[in-house]
């Protein structure tokens, strides 16, 4: 299987749409530079970057030839992981570039990015196939936007778990992905 995935890496990279990722990275680097120059804390920019990069990584799961490839022995989950690996590594590099360009008050680790990406993937796995990637890629952006809602109590806490407790969110998302590995 490793030989198959290794040989599939190159063509999968060519089959992946890189333009949205490049555009998002460009915008985020520009935003980080502007924030860095103004000498303000970049926590909001990094939270936005986590949501934007996660959305871009999840949107890379869109496979135009999915119907043709549906009954190949390499499972959809393995093909998703291949694409996630291809897009996830550059996303992490962009993240580290952003953190290098800015100053933050809190933690600047990539955990929120990883947690939001995992949430998006889990939603993609379980959403109806026709709109799965669209719904999944929207998830990180929706979670980012929901922080602004005037809520209180547990709901308020839960809406920012991806920032405050990202590794638990990651665990829950991974469990959801494993449960849906045959999908």
């Amino acid at each position, binding site marked *: 299987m490793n030989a198959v995935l290794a040989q599939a890496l190159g063509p999968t990279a060519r089959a992946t749409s890189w333009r949205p990722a490049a555009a998002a990275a460009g915008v985020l680097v520009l935003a980080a530079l502007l924030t860095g120059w103004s000498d303000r804390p970049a926590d909001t920019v990094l939270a936005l970057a986590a949501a934007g990069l996660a959305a871009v990584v999840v949107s890379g799961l869109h496979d135009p030839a999915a119907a043709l490839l549906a*009954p190949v*022995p390499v499972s959809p989950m393995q093909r998703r992981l291949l694409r996630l690996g291809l897009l996830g590594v550059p996303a992490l590099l962009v993240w580290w570039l952003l953190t290098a360009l800015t100053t933050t008050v809190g933690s600047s680790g990539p955990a929120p990015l990883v947690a939001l990406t995992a949430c998006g993937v889990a939603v993609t796995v379980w959403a109806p196939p026709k709109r799965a990637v669209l719904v999944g890629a929207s998830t990180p952006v929706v979670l980012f936007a929901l922080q602004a809602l005037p809520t209180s109590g547990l709901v308020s806490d839960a809406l920012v778990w991806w920032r405050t407790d990202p590794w638990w969110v990651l665990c829950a998302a991974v469990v959801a992905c494993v449960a849906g590995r045959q999908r």
Partner: protein
Amino acid sequence: MTTTHTTTGTLLAAGALTKRFGPLTAVDHVDLALGRGVVGLLGPNGAGKTTLLRILATVLAPDEGSLSLLGMDPARPSSRTEIRRHLGYLPQSPSLYAGFTPLEMVDYVAILKEHTDRDWRRREARNVLEAVGLGDRMHKRIRTLSGGMKQRVALAAALIGSPDLLVLDEPATGLDPEQRIALRSVLAETADRGCVVLSTHNTAEVAALCQHVLVMDRGRICWSGTPTDLAAEAEGRVWESDAEEPTALRSWLTGPGRRRHVGALPAGTTPAVPTVDDGYLLVTRLSR
């Protein structure tokens, strides 16, 4: 219950196969037993053909019933993977990677079918592309090809690795008459060693290609037999006239002022020679 046997050795067996989408039963207690040969699935739009083919291609799991493909149970993940190593599938209106060449596209599918020998894969990809008549276009970008050529690239991808079970959803869509004839040769070769199940709206295609026909309507197999048998269903029940016939089950214009009818032959009328079209129209009408 409908059971269809082609040649010896059952490659595909289904019992009471059922698939529902909410309140709609797309496939309703379908029974099948298919061996080597080409089996055509005919039916009106919405009859459940695509859903049935997706189940047979292991893309969709049935809600009820039993299914055995190449002697294995696709409900078991390990068996499903093994079945997929010997399965070719052409979906309805397949999308491809526009920036790939046909050779790269077919090669990529071959990789995902776990063919890791690069030389063998390239040789096989060239062979299937030659077989579908794209030998001279295999290095062009897919975005520059016509709809019919893209369809043939997808067909070549389905054929890679000489599958024992080939599931094709309207494979002749977008093909010109010459390409259709080439398709027949390709499928006949595959049918020598395995089972080909294809759906089509074209009864002439079925008559030319298939050893067996399944007529599907409202999720059920309402008729099965050979193309000759299907035409024979309309024996003595098809006629032509210049006027409308209120007693006919189906009537359609065949030329200026000339109508063809299927149904109970009126007294004193000379029956016409039945075709597969006549048989199909009669069978689908009688099933309702």
